């Protein structure tokens, strides 16, 4: 297992190098981050040239990439070069954004997984029942709707719900625009009230999308397993229905969902761009969009380093989980 993990990590090194070079070149050649300087009063071409030299923008893009890479492997993530960003240090900016996104998606993904797997199992066990049809309809509806639309719907209903609360003389509960500045304070009850109110809407929006995928995958996988020979044999041996489902079928049916969860979780941690935008959370998605818009390769590279690491990590986790769920799968 250790050898397998080391081998996988080593394989990912050249992939990361190629990916990071491609991203760097694409962003660095897409535009000049200092272009807007030309429109500041009294700024001359000499001023712009001096700023370019100071930021290293006068060097060929390959040299700039190499400089970034050597700094990065020595622990220096660099600074933003975008105008107006005041040379923001990349490392804290990326970790802050990851924390913001993480707070949003961890709860949403875990809820979606729990709900999706439960609904998927129940829908498979009660195939063609009313519950199955409802679960299928809901999942397809969520699948087919643009994420943007789901987020906007959830938000609109959230605001209307608050109006109802207010009309009943209660405090407005749900917030729609990012985390509360200054965090949460007050009594335990107040903290819970504020915390849930802050996270509920974006969490529900993210959860609905992921739930659809998990429930469909779990249902399909569960149906396949329930119709397999070993399940038939288990039933023939007189093993109870619940034991067949949870001991034998469920465990095997989790393999494709585990893969999906690992990949999906790594991907959403790299930025739920639309949900973050609609709900005003400045997370990894916002960081990515701003880096590209402002032609800011150092910040983009910071984002890429974290995202790539997460994807590699969660792929590894998926592989390890296969072995746990199905001992017949051996890694080596």
């Amino acid at each position, binding site marked *: 297992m250790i050898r397998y993990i080391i081998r996988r990590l080593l394989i990912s090194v050249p992939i990361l190098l190629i990916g990071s070079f491609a991203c760097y070149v694409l962003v660095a050649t897409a535009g000049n981050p200092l*272009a807007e300087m*030309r429109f500041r009063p009294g700024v001359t071409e000499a001023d712009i040239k001096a700023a370019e030299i100071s930021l290293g923008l006068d060097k060929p893009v390959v040299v700039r990439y190499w400089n970034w890479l050597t700094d990065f492997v020595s622990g220096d993530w660099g600074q933003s070069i975008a105008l107006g960003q*005041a040379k*923001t240090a990349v490392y804290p900016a990326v970790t802050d954004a990851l924390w913001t996104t993480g707070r949003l998606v961890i709860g949403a993904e875990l809820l979606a997984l729990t709900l999706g797997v439960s609904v998927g199992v129940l829908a498979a066990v009660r195939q063609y029942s009313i519950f199955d049809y*409802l679960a299928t309809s809901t999942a397809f509806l969520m699948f087919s709707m643009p994420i943007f639309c789901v987020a906007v719907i959830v938000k609109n209903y959230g605001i209307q719900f608050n109006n109802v609360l207010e009309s009943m003389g209660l405090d407005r509960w749900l917030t729609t625009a990012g985390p509360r500045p200054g965090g949460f304070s007050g009594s335990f009850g107040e903290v819970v009230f504020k915390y849930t109110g802050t996270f509920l809407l974006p969490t529900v929006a993210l959860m609905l999308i992921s739930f659809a995928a998990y429930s469909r995958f779990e249902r399909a996988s569960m149906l396949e397993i329930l119709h397999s020979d070993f399940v038939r044999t288990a039933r023939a041996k007189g093993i109870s229905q619940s034991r067949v489902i949870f001991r034998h079928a469920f465990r095997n049916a989790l393999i494709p969902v585990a893969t999906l969860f690992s990949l999906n979780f790594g991907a959403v941690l790299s930025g739920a761009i639309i949900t973050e935008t609609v709900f005003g959370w400045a997370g990894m998605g916002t960081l990515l969009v701003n880096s590209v818009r402002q032609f800011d390769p150092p910040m983009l590279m910071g984002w890429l380093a974290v995202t790539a690491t997460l994807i590699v990590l969660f792929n590894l986790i998926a592989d390890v989980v296969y072995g746990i769920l199905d001992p017949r799968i051996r890694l080596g």
Partner: protein
Amino acid sequence: MRRTKALPAIALVASASLVLGACGGGGGTSDADGGDATVAEMATARGESADGYTAPETKQSDQVVVSTDKPFTSYNNATEDANQSYNTFALTLVQPGAHLLNGNNKVILNKDVMESVEVTSKSPQVVTWKLKKGVSWSDGEAWDCDDFYMAWFTQSNSSKKADGTKYFKPAGTTGYDLMTGECKDDQTFVGTFSDPYPDYEDMFNNDVLPAHILEKNAGIADITKLNKDSAPADIQKAADFWNEKWNGFTKDLMPGAGSYVLTGFEPNQSVTLERNPKWVGKPGGPAKIILKAIPDPVAQAQALENGELAVNSFAQPDANAATKLKGLNAQGVTFGAGPGLSFEHLDIQFKNPVLANEEIRKAFFMCIKRQDIIDKLISEVQSDAKPMGSLIFFPKDEGYKDVYGDKAKGDPAEAKKILTEAGWAQGADGVFAKGGTRASFRISHTDIPRRKQTVELIQGQCKEAGIEVKDDTDPNFLDERVSAGDYDVALFAWSGSPFKGGKKSIYETGGGQNWQNLTVPAADEAMKKAVSQTAIADSLKFWSEADAALANSYGSLPLFQMPNMWAFKGLDRVYFQSYYGALWNANEWQTK
């Protein structure tokens, strides 16, 4: 079986109905905007008088959350790396200056902290800034001449290293580079100008930082002893601190001398201001103001609707958010929109052989229906928007005169007449031509939907006049091409200010930002005279002459000012000042 097949269909239809209903969004379609007269009155601060501004007695209130498009990044907004409007928005009440601008962009002496700003000699021009005694930073240190000296020394950027590069990285040096500054005493800063500089009121307004903090942290004994001939190591120490150490937020390094002080910062999210207990003026306004960045304009509007915020402020107008906010009028939301300090315009490239013909430029100006463009692109945000009539003056400026109204009437028949009288003839393709040259050229612009729509509208309007306009959308147009003059007609925006001096480098022959190769001797002469005055009032006549001469050259056509928009609920008066944002008079805000 039939029942179970029908169920999912019913569920689907029911769900879809709910979805479609919610997708459509809430809110009405009222066009009310809170009353123009009332909003217009809010442009004037309550503390204004004929001779300046003094913070008025104001009822104090609790916390107010204000949204804007982008986050605060630096306490020192005067550096080239940090400079952006969103820092100014947060700092306007933290770092007081000699003057402030009201909602009508009128320059007002800040009498809470200043005694006077006077020209004490005309040749050479000497300006004396007299500071009020007793003004202090929130850490107890005096707000005094040292702070003005540091603002001048760092932004004049006159010290050079051995290799010719400069120590400081100011966002601009305009004015400061013409001045030699000295502190006569703690309350008197005297600036002597090498050339006349009528825009001196544009200096020391939002760039006065605490010199004592730099002295203490950079190890400089006295900033006023630092000059361009000082030891390089000392200048370097000062530059290292000034260039970067005020970025982000470190409470101990960032006191306030205005009515508010920064007390909290969450990167990319928000900055918190609280009333400054050491404020020399009358305290008032909210006890705490949280300026929160919400990049999506509709999300800002919804947060106001949901009661999470009291004020929306948008430096970038958005029609969807404007519609949403107007619809909230019945819920007590006041919507405001007013012209900002940047304006869209068309610049003609005089090296282009087609556009070098004056009759083509005249006909081109004549065929453009500017009000039609405004009606289609701007009116949803600002219903009273009008075409801009000057390259030098904004409509609210003293001296403004519409010098383009008769030149850009949006009259295709008149445009055709101009070309026909000049010997051009309409070809079989409907486009005028003369001597084998067709009346055809490109309009180049960046990939912004509003600009693409502007070009599409102009294409249609000028087609009627027999002029072929081609669209040249280039995402990197503002990078190298515009400054290289690589265009026929350029469509972009200039950011202006109530001060006119910056216009000279754009429109004078050979000017650093005159990328269109414009040469108008009468304008050159008038601008030369304008900038050689020692007071704005004396220069206005010459700026007007330059403006008229530029209009007669048919070189640039101003289209419209980009609007700012804002909305608020539960407060008595909020106005988005184009340069300083919504917080410029937050110390006067009172809850309803």
